[in-house]
């Protein structure tokens, strides 16, 4: 009870400070989908002054996985006699022809795993079958994929491979910050990505683009602190990368995780759904580990596929429009029958927006 009161007191103080600091219309982007969900789930928007608005960025691995990549995943899962392991998040993402969930309903052996480690265990338990893991996610997830591939290499496991679509956040932020259409005054930077990366990779943002930046945690309080800090930086023109999540993020990040990623992957150009190709924004397995590369092993072609007609995911991811401004939103596109990927993951901008606010209270 005491804790709840203290929390409410703190939120009140932060709201007051924000009212005080935000003397002009401000737009901040939360880059990370988990922030997006936390913002909606906590009803935080309802506490903000009218002149402060939040837009959601490209921070959901589901949303940024390119349709051609999803199609490749489905093509692979559809091979007979193969176990396809995926994080639950990717299950409902529509490819050109249906989702992994649809495939499973029609008999493909698609398994939901909570970690890449579980996928490797599936390979160990099913030695006569190929097990392919769909490796998606940002700097946070890439180290675990790297660790598991290293273990598979050490133990000479032959029936395991990864369809590797990991993506890197800073190159996408550079693209966003440089866009003329984007008008954001500050970024709430992704907390858990920062756990791995540390602070340095974001320094170019305040330096080159004069935007406010805060690394924040995922409690409503953390996020509110982040917003106030962004407003403070704008008010005082004190642009920097403020580390408010020092409980978990060290300035240098997690060097061990960074090393593992460098050991197993090379940086590579990657296609982001809606954003197009971004230089050096993805990870590719080093030649030395190519036997674990599912795309090579099963000769998959990753095609360039247009977004479903009418879907404005790219604009939503760029923060150019809010989900409600997409003509399909809550009409042809809804969480039961998503058109675009932003409607799929519960942290996709469109899904979060649908779930928590499409009904106007």
């Amino acid at each position, binding site marked *: 009870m005491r804790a*709840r009161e203290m929390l409410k007191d703190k939120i009140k103080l932060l709201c007051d400070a924000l009212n005080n600091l935000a003397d002009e219309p401000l737009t901040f982007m939360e880059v990370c989908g988990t922030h997006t969900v936390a913002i909606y*789930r*906590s*009803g935080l928007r309802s506490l903000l002054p009218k002149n402060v608005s939040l837009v959601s960025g490209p921070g959901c691995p589901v949303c940024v996985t390119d349709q051609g990549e999803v199609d490749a995943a489905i093509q692979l899962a559809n091979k007979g006699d193969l176990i396809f392991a995926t994080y639950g998040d990717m*299950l409902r993402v529509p490819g050109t022809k249906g989702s992994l969930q649809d495939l499973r309903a*029609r008999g493909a052996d698609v398994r939901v795993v909570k970690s890449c480690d579980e996928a490797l265990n599936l390979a160990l338990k099913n030695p006569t079958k190929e097990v392919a893991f769909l490796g998606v996610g940002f700097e946070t997830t890439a180290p675990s994929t790297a660790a598991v591939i290293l273990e598979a290499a050490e133990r000479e496991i032959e029936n395991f491979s990864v369809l590797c679509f990991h993506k890197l956040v800073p190159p996408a932020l550079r693209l966003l910050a440089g866009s003329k259409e984007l008008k954001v005054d500050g970024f709430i930077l992704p907390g858990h990505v920062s756990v791995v990366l540390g602070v340095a990779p974001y320094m170019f943002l305040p330096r080159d683009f004069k935007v406010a930046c805060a690394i924040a945690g995922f409690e409503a309080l953390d996020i509110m602190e982040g917003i106030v800090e962004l407003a403070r930086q704008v008010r005082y023109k004190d642009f920097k990368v403020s580390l408010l999540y020092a409980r978990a993020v060290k300035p240098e990040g997690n060097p061990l995780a960074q090393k593992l990623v460098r050991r197993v992957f090379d940086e590579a150009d990657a296609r982001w759904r809606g954003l197009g190709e971004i230089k050096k924004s993805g990870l590719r397995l080093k030649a030395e580990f190519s036997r674990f590369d599912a795309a090579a092993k099963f000769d998959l072609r990753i095609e360039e596929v247009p977004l479903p007609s009418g879907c404005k995911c790219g604009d939503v991811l760029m923060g150019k429009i809010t989900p409600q401004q997409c003509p399909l939103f809550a009409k042809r596109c809804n969480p039961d029958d998503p058109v675009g990927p932003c409607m799929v993951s519960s942290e996709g901008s469109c899904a979060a927006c649908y779930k928590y606010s499409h009904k106007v209270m």
Partner: protein
Amino acid sequence: MFVELKHGSGGRPTQQLIGEILSIYGDNSIKDLEDCALIEGGLGVTIDGFTVSPRFFPGGDIGKLAVCGSTNDLAVRGVKPMYLAMSILIEEGLPKEELIKVVKSAYGVSKELDVKLVAGDTKVLPRGQADGMYITCCALGKAVTGRPWGINNLSSGDILVITGPIGKHGALISALHYGLDVDQLASDCAPLWPLMQPLTEVAGVKCARDCTRGGLGTVLCEWAEGAGIGIEIEEDLIPLDPEVASVADVLGFDVLHLACEGTAVIAVAPDCAEYVLSSLRVLAPNCTAIGKVTEDHPGIVGLKTEIGGIRVVDMLAGEMVPRIC
């Protein structure tokens, strides 16, 4: 179009599927959105299929669940459970002792409720065409309230009472399914009639529902949409066990969508809320008021969050799968 797991999750896709089925039956069906139909002679009828996996779990098993689940649908309409019809589908190869154990559990609840088994059926399916065993239970009973409890009685100002902490059954089954180890977690699987019976004499009780598939959130959305009323609840007031909160955190679930199997939400007129709570407290010490029915925002459930923000609660939209983000 294929039937998918999401159609069984209890949320909106489930509602839609059931809606399509009912539309075929047209006027030859009851479509009042209640869990239990009232037919002539004040007879209440409900049917439910039970396919829980694993079959045995802390707090119950599929037999106990089947009798609780079906009779609870009567209880929350103020109908005294009296008769059961039970159909069991068995996969070839099920150890007979398991079947016996399950039937004994079913019997245990039936006896406690003084419910009689009046019809039964067993079918055996070839190996691989079922997962052990499934039970369908049809429960029958007599309505004992003055006016039948139901969502049509809901009106602005009604107080919403929950009989205990939410999401225990759903959190347990998810934890077991996804290999999480929670010693202290048990299903809330229990018959609700002992709780409901004293309330049948209270005129101010309007409507009740057991918060099964889809959880409290989905039930409240059904009420709001079905009755065209608004609902406001407060996160701080909703009883929640820390085990359930942890499972939801780790798997990325919303506790408002986790199933209960012995926990109900009850709408009561404001003037008798205190009486109802004190009556419930005898058997349900953690019962509490969590919100109210409003005139505002009809069709919508609003949640006042921990930090004092407001957000909309929606039905569960698809299958619940663990997420990394």
